[in-house]
């Protein structure tokens, strides 16, 4: 048992090299956040002065207060983002839980091809299908409503959700279904009373990843299918603000950080599940 410990023992210069490598890597990943945060603390005058100064002098959290006035719809944008993501997640789960169970358990003619077809949806981004989707939304009469962002959003989150949940459900022993079936339980009863309770952790992971995916990717549909300020999700609401001639950068950054906060808190709480969910599909069994 001491062998793995021995093999992983680093010499001091190896340790230094590894930490340097990690530092460089994380510096690239985190630089925009660090810079964004410092910008949110700088007064506007300092922001627009040369030469460039990295650290804020007489920095303050003033922008975090004034932004609520400058971005009037801000609270509404955050609510919209949450609302849209929640509804999207609920619809995805309703559609995906039965489908994933079917793919995990039943082999029938064409099931492999059908699964491949579902996964192929991932190939197309919303941008490619934007024109017909726009016409479809228009003829459904949902342009400029929440549905214009929810309906297409769901479709592009279905494939990975099916894949994740199917992987999870395949690990549930088949004997459980068979025992229930032998006892005279119907298929629906087995799914509802035997499989669903056991699959709950997997369903939770799928719900979290779907929610985060939806929260992170609200842009193109919201930009194209909705022009009403009161329905805009956070990214598009801030984009309208970003596009102005005179951008009040410290407030924009402050608003971004407040908008990011929910997602970051979720990561820290759920990171174990996230990594588990991601790796479930990653490694061949």
């Amino acid at each position: 048992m001491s062998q793995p410990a021995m093999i992983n023992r680093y010499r001091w210069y190896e340790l230094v090299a590894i930490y340097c490598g990690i530092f460089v890597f994380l510096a690239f990943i985190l630089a925009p956040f660090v810079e964004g945060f410092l910008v949110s603390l700088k007064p506007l005058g300092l922001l627009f002065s040369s030469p460039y100064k990295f650290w804020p002098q007489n920095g303050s959290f003033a922008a975090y207060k004034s932004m609520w006035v400058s971005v009037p719809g801000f609270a509404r944008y955050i609510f919209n983002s949450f609302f849209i993501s929640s509804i999207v997640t609920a619809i995805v789960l309703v559609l995906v839980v039965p489908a994933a169970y079917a793919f995990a358990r039943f082999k029938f003619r064409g099931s492999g091809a059908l699964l491949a077809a579902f996964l192929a949806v991932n190939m197309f981004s919303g941008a490619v299908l934007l024109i017909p989707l726009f016409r479809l939304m228009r003829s459904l009469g949902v342009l400029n409503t929440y549905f214009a962002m929810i309906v297409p959003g769901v479709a592009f989150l279905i494939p990975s959700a099916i894949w994740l949940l199917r992987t999870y459900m395949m690990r549930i022993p088949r004997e459980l279904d068979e025992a229930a079936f032998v006892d005279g339980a119907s298929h629906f009863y087995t799914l509802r009373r035997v499989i669903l309770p056991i699959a709950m952790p997997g369903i939770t992971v799928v719900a979290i990843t779907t929610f985060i995916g939806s929260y992170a990717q609200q842009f193109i549909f919201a930009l194209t299918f909705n022009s009403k300020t009161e329905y805009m999700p956070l990214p598009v609401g801030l984009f309208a603000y970003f596009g102005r001639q005179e951008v009040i950068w410290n407030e924009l950054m402050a608003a971004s950080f407040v908008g990011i906060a929910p997602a970051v808190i979720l990561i820290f709480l759920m990171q174990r599940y996230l990594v588990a969910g991601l790796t479930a599909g990653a490694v061949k069994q």
Partner: protein
Amino acid sequence: MSVQRSTVIFAWILLLPALLYVTVIVAYPLVDTFILSFTDASLKKTTNWVGWANYDKIFNETFAEVIFRTFVWTFFSVSIKMIIGVFGATMLNAAVPGRALFRVLTMPPWIVPMAIGIFMWGWMYNGQFGMISGMLQNWGIVDGPVAFLARGETAFWATIITDVWIGVPLVTLYMLAAMQAIPQDLYEAAWTDGAGRFYRFRRITLPLLVPSLITMSMLSLIATFNSFDIIWILTQGGPNGETTTMIIDTYRTAIGSKKYGEGAARAVLICIFLSIFCLAYFRVTSRLASGESR
């Protein structure tokens, strides 16, 4: 026999809602794009069949440039993502104190609303007051301010770097998972035989990562080819169209100028390229799979 049939029927009932949804929201629009590409659809009430006219119109010099640019952009973005991703995964795979925290710190670009990360890059690229230009001036590397997004060449690379930044966390965590799936006894056997750390990495880790590397580069290729938000927020395809990729070009034509027919023809071309990538992917993975079973 009837049990078998009722099972199949049950399976189809379970699949039906998702199937219907994807058919209406993805498959039907796909077919519609194809049909639209042969019409002059626009905001007008009437739509006429125009045959290949849209395709004739787009095959000109600027469009060839757009296709070429898209491929160059995608190639560099995917390659850099893979290199940084494997580097990051190797570092995070080292058994050093603090690695659990480092893994969490890798995730933000992937999990935070994409548009917001891009706003931050937008500021960093600002020539007058942004961090990159400012630091370069303070260190005396450049003389005056560099407005990265205002000049064609720098804008091209700036959008690539931002795309890399958004894609790296997923690549890193995926490659990390693949590294951890490599049986530990392989390393121990090599270690017992006196193989050094670099030798083990080169001869065990890298070869065993090849299947995951191929999978991830293909997934990344498809996502990058479709990349829209980054370029749209940073440059909207400018300056002078130097960051206009196929997706941006399609969006401008279809949504900006409301030329649905011409936009659809461009979208069809994108779909054709994506299908070629997918076919190549299936060919490669099935060959890998059959190689494994040998």
